[in-house]
């Protein structure tokens, strides 16, 4: 089922959310970095803007923060129109990609910086700074300067500093970009815990799908200044709206075909190498050109052709034979590249659930791939 590539308001929240963006445009001398974006975010949500570099996500974030002025459109936070407010007056704070810790100030002074600008009384500042240090577990490092901290510690200071003023909206710019893989995994969970603990609404920008999907409750896939799809990570992964989104998130096999049998409860699609039996109806007409998207982990591979399972029809549907052209071993799973008759290569991901299998597939082997009727996503865009 394909969805038209328009923007969507959040599904189960107020039509006007806690953060409400309408028709936002940023035009740089004719080049529209942000092209008519509208979005609603509920209070307490962690929302991710996902896209590759140049898609406009950073520009959008900077407009929220106030470092760029929108060419058109409005930004309303908790009922207040912020579109023309300078950054130092906005009730939101940002955690920068490079952390941007003030090198000439101690950790304590860095966190206190924003509170001092707000002219809080001295004892209140002290109490809040100590609370923040406790939150990120850096109490012992209060008097150190940024260059005396490791990368992970610097990030925690940056987080504490951005939460110190209890902002209505927290903006994260590629929060885990500077960390190495192991640290990234640990920090992802920690970061989400702290944010949910504090209960602050959060918009984050990232080019890393894993980061977006693990951390966010909803995300938007962005390209060329527009939203391609907005939804929960699971929705976007399992039901991408367009070819682009399907290909962008995770790995996918895309097969062109024609709709040959259109029924209410199932359809059959003819492709060059195989025929697909899709276990639900779609809106379309027979003879229509469609694309079938199949995720590698939804395909079973084996030397022998497996008999159809429950609910699967007879007749050679949803299965194809090919030669193992290549395989990549990732430890916990292996990705097989199966060359089909038409020349197309099918990517199949199989968990290595057993330690040493006697009949492991290897290069040049002939193998059968098969999948169930609900494994497909049919795309018309």
């Amino acid at each position: 089922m394909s969805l038209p590539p328009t923007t969507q308001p959040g599904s189960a929240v107020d039509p006007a959310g806690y953060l409400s963006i309408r028709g936002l445009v940023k035009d740089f001398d004719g080049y529209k970095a942000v092209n008519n974006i509208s979005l609603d975010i509920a209070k307490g949500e962690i929302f991710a803007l996902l896209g590759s570099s140049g898609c406009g996500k950073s520009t959008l974030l900077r407009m929220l923060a106030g470092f760029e002025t929108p060419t058109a459109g409005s930004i309303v936070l908790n009922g207040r129109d912020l579109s023309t407010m300078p950054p130092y007056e906005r009730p939101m704070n940002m955690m920068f990609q490079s952390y941007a810790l003030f090198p000439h100030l101690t950790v304590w002074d860095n966190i206190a910086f924003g509170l001092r600008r707000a002219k809080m009384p001295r004892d209140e500042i002290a109490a809040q700074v100590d609370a923040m240090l406790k939150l990120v577990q850096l109490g012992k490092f209060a008097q150190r300067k940024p260059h005396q901290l490791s990368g992970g510690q610097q990030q925690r200071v940056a987080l504490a500093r951005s939460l110190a003023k209890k902002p209505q909206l927290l903006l994260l710019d590629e929060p885990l970009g500077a960390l190495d893989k192991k640290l990234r995994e640990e920090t992802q969970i920690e970061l989400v815990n702290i944010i949910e603990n504090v209960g602050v609404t959060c918009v984050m920008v990232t080019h890393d799908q894993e980061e977006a999907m693990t951390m966010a409750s909803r995300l938007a896939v962005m390209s060329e200044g527009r939203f391609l799809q907005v939804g929960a990570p699971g929705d976007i992964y399992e039901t991408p709206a367009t070819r682009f989104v399907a290909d962008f998130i995770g790995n996918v096999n895309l097969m062109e075909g024609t709709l040959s049998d259109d029924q209410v409860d199932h359809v059959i699609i003819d492709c060059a190498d195989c025929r697909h039996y899709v276990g639900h109806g779609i809106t379309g007409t027979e003879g229509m050109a469609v694309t079938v998207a199949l995720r590698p982990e939804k395909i079973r591979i084996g030397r022998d052709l497996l008999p159809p399972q429950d609910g699967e029809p007879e007749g050679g549907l949803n299965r194809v034979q090919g030669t193992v052209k290549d395989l990549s071993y990732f430890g916990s799973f292996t990705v097989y590249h199966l060359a089909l008759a038409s020349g197309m290569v099918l990517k199949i991901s199989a968990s290595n659930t057993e330690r040493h299998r006697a009949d492991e597939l290897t290069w040049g082997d002939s193998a059968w791939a098969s999948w169930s009727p609900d494994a497909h996503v049919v795309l018309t865009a």
Partner: protein
Amino acid sequence: MKGSAFNRWFGAGWMTMGFVFLYLPILALVVFSFNDSPVPNLWRGFTLKWYSALAADDEMISAFMLSMKVAFFTACASLVLGTLAAFALVKYSRFSGRTLFSGMVNAPLVMPEVIVGLSLLLMLVSVQRALGFPERGSLTIWMGHLLLGMAYATVVIQARLKELNPQLEEAAMDLGARPWQVFTLVTLPMISQSLMSAWLLTFTLSLDDVVLSAFLSGPGSTTLPLVIFSRARLGLNPTVNAVATMIVVVVAIGVVLASYFIARAERNRTLEIAQANRA
């Protein structure tokens, strides 16, 4: 390439010869300031009489005081104008007339001083004819030195400003600092070292300037370099050696101390960073 023995020896040799070339005159100046002979080149014995002659040399002393005064004000004003110009060039990448501005800021660095001096003088004379002000004197000398000093200050400050992470200033604004506060609380502390070196550089330049001072000075306003220059034109003069030695000693102490402290701070910093990353 690194590591080749020939390269290392050749390099060390070349640099040594280069340093000998650079320091030979300074050494000669110092040595012959203690020479008991009116002709500096023939060594006749050790004496301090040229230094005591200096103490009684009113012309030299008043010239020195004037030079110090002008140099001080030149350095301060160059710092202000240089910081403004550096900001203009680094922060605002597009404004009308930027090419002309950039050209004017950089030109005094290389323009022969006779041209700068002459043109500035002619302008000041025309202005004086029309408005009756300013008279040639320490004020006009200051104006000329400021032109040169501003160019040098801009180069030094601009180099440092370019290196700054722009996200630091954005972070400050994000946390509620207004533009002026961003400048005083974040930018200024971070460029403070370059401000210091710009000040010292322009101070030295002003103290040492001959041509601009010659064009722009008036009756009663003679700078130290002008006094030295007129004496040097006439021939070799041991009192000049004495002045030179004093300047060399002051500068050497200053430069060595500064380098020592900077190097030590750098070393400590690197140590701290290494410790943090091991923790």
